[in-house]
């Protein structure tokens, strides 16, 4: 019997859902199968590209916010970012990788993205 470790809530179901969601990102088991090694490399490379792409996007947003981009620049940056995003989708498709998989767990530092 649980003596003092009491959990009180009126909405247990909602908390169960959110707690389970937060634990969904399971660490990958190491698998030395050559096919998976290939996929593992692709994942790593794409994760890093994704990181840079997100940085670029964020930088662009900051510039829009600050109003420091000309009309022409907005158009050009938009086109480039869009192409980048589409390319990433294509690559993810080729390697059969989901968004959530393109991440790195840095231990005590948490996840990369």
């Amino acid at each position, binding site marked *: 019997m649980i003596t003092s470790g009491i959990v009180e*809530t009126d909405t247990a179901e909602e908390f169960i859902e959110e707690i389970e969601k937060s634990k969904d990102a399971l660490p990958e088991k190491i698998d030395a199968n050559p096919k998976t090694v290939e996929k593992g490399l692709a994942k790593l490379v794409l994760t890093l590209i994704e990181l840079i792409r997100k940085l670029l996007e964020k930088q662009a947003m900051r510039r829009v916010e600050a109003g420091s981009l000309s009309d022409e620049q907005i158009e050009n940056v938009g086109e480039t970012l869009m192409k980048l995003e589409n390319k990433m989708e294509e690559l993810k498709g080729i390697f059969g990788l989901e968004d959530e998989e393109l991440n790195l767990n840095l231990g005590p530092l948490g996840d990369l993205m």
Partner: protein
Amino acid sequence: MIVPVHGRHITSVGFQAGKDKMNAVVVKSKEVTLLEILDRVLDKGVVISGDMVISVADVDLIYLGLKVLLSSVETIEKLKGSPFTSPM
């Protein structure tokens, strides 16, 4: 253990339905309690490692355990005299 029953009335008509709803609430409450315990017992607290330690709850065990556990909650319900079904 506190089971939330605010505003849920068990009337004589549809007593079984009321009882089932009450049970569902109780099961969910137990489940969330278990999740809270699991998070602490499997993932927090003192970790001692080294040659003299035979086994420590390792990562695989933790995550496998979490998945297995939630399906075993209701199985445990049926076990007679288990700490889990003791009156709270």
